[in-house]
């Protein structure tokens, strides 16, 4: 009986191709919108998470200045006491549970090679920086400890810098000018690509902190201290330890607030990811409204179909169809119709999401659960919105229905 009804409904859909297509359009657009939104959304979430993990996993970043709090933006106070060599030394000496501790000071500086020039993010740091940020070298070597200590003019460059100055060539051993100082390239950093905020992470030059401080910054300040937790220590556990050691090193009495901030990149990653997920959910819900509209379209056309086929219903009832036969026939027709719309919608939605993932360079992340849900939901819409028209058809009086012109 069900099989018969499916066959019948396919035939009836085929007979009214244009009308069926227009009916489907609502469901197609609704499902396509939901699928595209959710797929792009989950791709974005993945992208954001990946971006933040590119900064380094299980990473704490310390910088001078009050932490952001309910009192207002945490920004820089008038007189911020910068981080200094002794703060770093205290962490290195006393902090347990850290895999790598590294200072970093940054500045946008003009870098010159031959006649080419480029404004690049120049970072003064030490050899632990690569470890802290999970950053590898494609070729060459990191700074040696003695180079770090003495502030020798050596540097590591990112992929963007290499391309700007050397094309596909090997940059190792070349001398570039950074600000007014020159430094020799000893290694090439692995490409990291852009962050989700459009920042080129490969447009960088790393040099020993002492060299940076002396020749570029002109002071002995440290902007940030990167602390990577080891595998056994969660960052949430590491953070209070860092805070204690630094308060001690910076001689902050217990009655005063810390004058430095510790950012937990893992928590930021989670927060960003959950924000994106929330956005995705909202967009999905908005798209879902169009599904409702599509359902009403189905109800509309099914009512037309029942009215148009009143005589057919009368014949079927006269020759012995029960109410349930008529009910099933129209219910199946509505369900098949909206299921068809759902499937077309899924294909279009996935295509849109694929296109978006190519243009936005986010991962294409179709979710089988979401697709299955869309299939189920579109079938459900057909049943729900098809029920009333089907019932109307089934309740017809055969005598009246036969008289219907």
């Amino acid at each position: 009986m069900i099989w018969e009804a499916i066959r019948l409904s396919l035939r009836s859909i085929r007979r009214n191709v244009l009308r069926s297509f227009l009916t489907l359009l609502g469901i197609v657009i609704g499902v396509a919108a939901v699928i595209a939104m959710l797929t792009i959304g989950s791709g974005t979430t993945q992208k954001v998470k990946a971006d933040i993990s590119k900064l380094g996993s299980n990473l704490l970043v310390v910088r001078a200045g009050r932490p952001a709090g309910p009192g207002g933006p945490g920004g820089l106070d008038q007189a911020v006491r910068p981080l200094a060599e002794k703060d770093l030394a205290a962490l290195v000496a006393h902090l347990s549970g850290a895999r790598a501790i590294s200072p970093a000071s940054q500045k946008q500086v003009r870098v010159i090679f031959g006649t080419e020039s480029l404004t690049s993010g120049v970072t003064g740091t030490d050899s632990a920086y690569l470890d802290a940020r999970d950053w590898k070298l494609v070729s060459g070597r990191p700074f040696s400890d003695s180079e770090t200590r003495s502030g020798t003019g050596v540097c590591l460059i990112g992929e963007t810098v290499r391309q700007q100055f050397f094309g596909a060539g090997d940059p190792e051993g070349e001398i570039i000018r950074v600000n007014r100082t020159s430094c020799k390239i000893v290694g090439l950093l692995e490409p990291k690509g852009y962050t989700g905020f459009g920042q080129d992470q490969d447009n960088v030059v790393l040099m020993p902190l002492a060299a940076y401080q002396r020749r570029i910054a002109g002071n002995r300040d440290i902007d940030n201290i990167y602390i990577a937790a080891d595998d056994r220590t969660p960052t949430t556990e590491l953070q209070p330890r860092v805070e204690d050691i630094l308060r001690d090193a910076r001689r902050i009495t217990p009655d005063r607030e810390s004058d430095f901030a510790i950012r937990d990149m893992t928590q930021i990653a989670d927060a960003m990811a959950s924000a994106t997920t929330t956005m995705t959910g909202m967009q999905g819900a908005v798209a879902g409204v169009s599904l409702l509209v599509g359902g009403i379209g189905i109800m509309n056309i099914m009512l037309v179909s029942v009215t148009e086929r009143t005589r057919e219903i009368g014949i079927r009832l006269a020759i012995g169809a029960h109410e349930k036969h008529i009910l099933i026939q129209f219910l199946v027709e509505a369900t098949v119709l909206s299921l068809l719309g759902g499937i077309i919608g899924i294909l279009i939605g996935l295509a849109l999401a694929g296109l978006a993932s190519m243009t936005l360079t986010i991962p294409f992340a179709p979710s089988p659960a979401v697709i299955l849900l869309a299939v189920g939901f579109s079938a459900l819409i057909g049943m729900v919105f098809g029920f009333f028209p089907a019932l109307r058809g089934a309740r017809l009086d055969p005598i009246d229905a036969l008289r219907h012109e």
Partner: protein
Amino acid sequence: MAAGAPLITFDTVWKSYGQGEAKVHALAGVDLAIRRGEFVAIMGPSGSGKSTAMNIIGCLDTPTAGTYSFMGVDAGRLDRNRRAMLRNLYVGFVFQGYNLLARTTAAENVELPLIYRGVAARERRDLAMQALAEVGLVGREHHTPAELSGGQQQRVAIARAIVTRPTLLVADEPTGNLDTARTHEIMELLTRLNKELGLTVAMVTHEADVAEYAERTIRFLDGHVASDTMNMETA
């Protein structure tokens, strides 16, 4: 049930529409019996109650008062679905306007009642072919109604009515849309089915020459049976 025992009995059947002053009696206490194997013509002017009587005979409608029994069953007290079952099992319908499903082949139209009986597809096909052969439509199985003449369409409708081997055939002006030659053919066919299959036929008509094919003529007037006569044997 012995042969010749009443298949259909009306016991003071009333069918009324409307309320109070506006109340209209389509049937006003009709008593009637039709035996198995009879070929009955039902005549009468419009509004005489003949159509109402036919709807009740075909178990499409129920009396307001009185008893309608079909095969010994009080069919007037059955609910919609039970009456649908009775129709499916024992009654075949032929209408003036043929009432075939458009854009559906002759064979599929004939199969229709079997679907609601739950007959398997292959058996349905076989039975439909057999019924189409019985009405003389071999070779037209895959034509849609639009591709068939009026007479052929009515033959398909008759095939659809007899494919279930019903006890009763209810025909409502079966030749109303046909010319004289086609009328004659269809009436010959109904007569043959009545004789060969022992099919009881109840036929509404307003044409006297059509009624002559029947063995018996019942005339309705103002909701009553005005006359009930046996016809002379036609040659």
